[in-house]
């Protein structure tokens, strides 16, 4: 057996993400990827069965990378406010510093590859973060809450700020720049809403 060339695989992966992000899934194909990555199509087919397999594998890897970034330094046993703040900091850092990864994720979210990727993300999040909300309820820090309502109140406001930042403006073209101060101010309202 020949040794696996990790640099080559990494190059293929990065190029695929870049192409899908910039040109969409419809125009993506292994031949075009091979040309762009400077490898032969056969090399790609050694690692991946076909186009679907390649997109599925790469999207799951990217999804998990996002999970691990989100959960860095986080523990499901943490007090509610502390744990949620770590998630906000991690999520904002990932969203602001991984524009390509985030756009790739958005492209896939509306595709047929969505299911496998979301399952991988959700399995990992359930394992590491799932008990966090339950623990907070058990300790009497927050009320019983469905995941949908929890997400909408506890996490979604952060992504509104990120979106304003990425658009570079909020309402009526008003200039907006994300900062930790604004994030903390928003976070404090979220905590006020959720904590008993």
């Amino acid at each position, binding site marked *: *057996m*020949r040794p696996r060339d990790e640099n080559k695989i990494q190059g293929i992966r990065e190029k695929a993400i870049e192409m899908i992000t910039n040109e969409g899934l419809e125009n993506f*194909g292994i031949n075009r990827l091979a040309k762009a990555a400077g490898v032969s199509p056969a090399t790609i087919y050694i690692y991946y069965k*076909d*186009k679907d397999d390649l997109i599925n594998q790469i999207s799951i890897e990217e999804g998990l990378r996002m999970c691990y970034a989100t959960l860095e330094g986080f523990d499901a046993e943490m007090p509610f406010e502390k744990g949620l703040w770590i998630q906000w900091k991690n999520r904002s850092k990932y969203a602001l510093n991984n524009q390509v990864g985030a756009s790739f994720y958005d492209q896939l979210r509306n595709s047929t590859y969505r299911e496998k990727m979301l399952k991988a993300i959700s399995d990992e999040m359930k394992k590491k973060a799932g008990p966090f909300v339950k623990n907070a309820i058990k300790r009497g820090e927050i009320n019983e809450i469905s995941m949908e309502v929890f997400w909408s109140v506890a996490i979604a406001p952060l992504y509104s700020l990120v979106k304003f930042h990425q658009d570079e403006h909020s309402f009526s073209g008003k200039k907006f720049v994300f900062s930790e101060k604004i994030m903390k101010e928003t976070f404090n309202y979220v905590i006020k809403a959720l904590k008993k």
Partner: protein
Amino acid sequence: MCNNIPEHILIFKTNITAERDLFAVKTVLDTHHLIEQWNIDQTDVDCVLRVISYHLSYADIIQIISGLNYFCEELTT
């Protein structure tokens, strides 16, 4: 994925483009006892055939596919 490139993965360029072509090939490849796994990426312009076999060579697969009147050529890395 494993840590080494397995040499029993054989990659070919073909003209197996349509669903009925795929069916013709399927009947032969599915029942071949020396073929572990195979698939064709019909989304690719080269309709790439990927075969996993510990015993068959490129020439063996080309012979099988050509025998079914399809074009088949090794895709080199």
